[in-house]
């Protein structure tokens, strides 16, 4: 089996300036299961083929989430400190018990409709303020509008609180990127995380006082008040939902704008109604694969791809690679806006499949719909700046001009 010393898969720099897609394509073709080491002794197995990644996702008994879902999330033999109490780092049966109240209160049909309305209102209002000739950074002016509406609905807060919460989660996830944190990244991460937890704590207090439970945090507050859920569990999962929602879809939207700018004839198919916004959204999700990988720990031997990953090993599941697998997708390295039967794996699979997937899809589709209906368009004017992260594929800067839609599509 291929063993890579000092693997580029650890390097945020590699993801920001080099071509991780090509590197992963070579692995997928020649060494679909490989080992990646770092000088300090950290080591993980990398799964790069769709069928292997899928098999790993659904095998949550052999592959535990309790040891952190990011490289460096925690060190063996220690579990993540939130292990078993926060969705993303909990195994069954604790995971299912936490997931149920969150899913039922935050992601039910009525809540989805409410979220959809707020997100559409926010996108419309930000687009309506723009005039032909405006120059702006899409990542700061438009992209944050997507999750902002979700926060407003789930946490029952106003736009300014939602914006502050966004800022804090952005600092947490992008803490290795100077664009977000300045010079003291770990301090910024810690302070931002506490800020979010404190915000959740105050919201829960307030909701216990008022008794309103018609949104996610209100429902969790009632669970805390009634003794059904420890307060720490409510806090950690409020944090989990906020981070999961905030630090993904803005990147997907930014990458979507950059992608469509380069492929205008394909965008015309959406504008003309030849390809539905729903279909286009699925291809954008496949193409951008915003969450590049997740990590698991094999608690027992895990056989995959003709080899056996020994118990005690970290295993990484590369969504971005699975989404370019030629065994599943025809012409995998091409963006095809009308791609039929898209089985994109951007949200993972199995019990840990992204809880917010319906909301994220709704946000992106609403954005695509509003963009297609807009009489203007975003024309990219400079090379986009990629986020320095091997975990989130996104942009920290996307300079665009606002142009007439008809000029854009000429």
């Amino acid at each position: 089996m291929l063993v890579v010393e000092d693997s580029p898969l650890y390097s945020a720099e590699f993801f920001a300036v080099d071509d991780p897609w090509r590197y992963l394509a070579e692995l997928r073709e020649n060494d679909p299961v490989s080992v990646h080491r770092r000088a300090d002794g950290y080591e993980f197995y990398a799964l790069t083929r769709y069928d292997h990644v899928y098999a790993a996702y659904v095998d949550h008994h052999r592959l535990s989430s309790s040891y952190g879902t990011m490289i460096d999330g925690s060190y063996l033999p220690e579990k993540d400190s939130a292990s078993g109490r926060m969705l993303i780092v909990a195994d069954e049966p604790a995971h299912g018990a936490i997931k149920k109240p969150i899913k039922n209160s935050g992601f039910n049909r009525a809540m989805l409709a409410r979220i959809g309305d707020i997100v559409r209102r926010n996108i419309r209002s930000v687009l309506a303020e723009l005039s032909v000739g405006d120059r702006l950074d899409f990542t700061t002016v438009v992209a944050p509008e997507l999750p902002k509406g979700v926060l407003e609905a789930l946490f029952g807060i106003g736009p300014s609180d939602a914006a502050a919460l966004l800022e804090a989660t952005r600092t947490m996830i992008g803490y290795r990127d100077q664009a977000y944190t300045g010079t003291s990244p770990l301090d910024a991460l810690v302070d931002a995380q506490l800020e979010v937890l404190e915000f959740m704590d105050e919201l829960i207090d307030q909701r216990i006082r008022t008794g309103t439970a018609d949104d996610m945090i209100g429902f969790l507050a009632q669970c805390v008040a009634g003794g059904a859920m420890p307060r720490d569990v409510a806090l950690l999962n409020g944090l989990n939902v906020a981070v999961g929602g905030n630090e993904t879809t803005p990147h997907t939207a930014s990458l979507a704008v950059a992608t469509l700018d380069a492929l205008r004839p394909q965008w015309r198919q959406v504008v003309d109604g030849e390809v539905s916004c729903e279909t286009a959204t699925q291809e954008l999700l496949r193409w951008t694969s915003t969450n590049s990988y997740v990590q698991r720990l094999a608690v027992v031997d895990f056989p995959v791809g003709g080899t056996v990953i020994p118990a005690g090993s970290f295993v990484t599941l590369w969504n971005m690679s699975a989404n370019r697998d030629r065994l599943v997708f025809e012409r995998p390295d091409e963006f095809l806006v009308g791609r039929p039967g898209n089985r994109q794996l951007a949200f993972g699979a199995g019990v840990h499949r992204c809880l917010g997937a319906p909301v994220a899809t709704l946000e992106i589709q609403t954005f695509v719909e509003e963009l297609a209906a807009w009489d203007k368009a975003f024309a990219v004017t400079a090379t986009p700046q990629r986020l320095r992260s091997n975990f989130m594929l996104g942009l920290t800067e996307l300079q665009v001009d606002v142009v007439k839609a008809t000029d854009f599509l000429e």
Partner: protein
Amino acid sequence: MTELTVNLIMECVRKVADREIVEDTDIFAAGIDSLAVLRCRAMLKEWTGVKVPGHVFFGGRTPAGIFELIEAEHVGC
């Protein structure tokens, strides 16, 4: 309001961690995590009016180290 001292830091960590803590106990080895830091911070704020930034707990690691960082950063001044 009381003045913030090493003793007060030990006192709040003791309450939150529910175990004996001395000046040079590594509070994270003693089981303190982000949520516990949140509680410690709230307690210190209530007692002294000073809001200690989270990174000071993680940077200081022991009650003595935390106090030293608070002094160095003039937190709350």
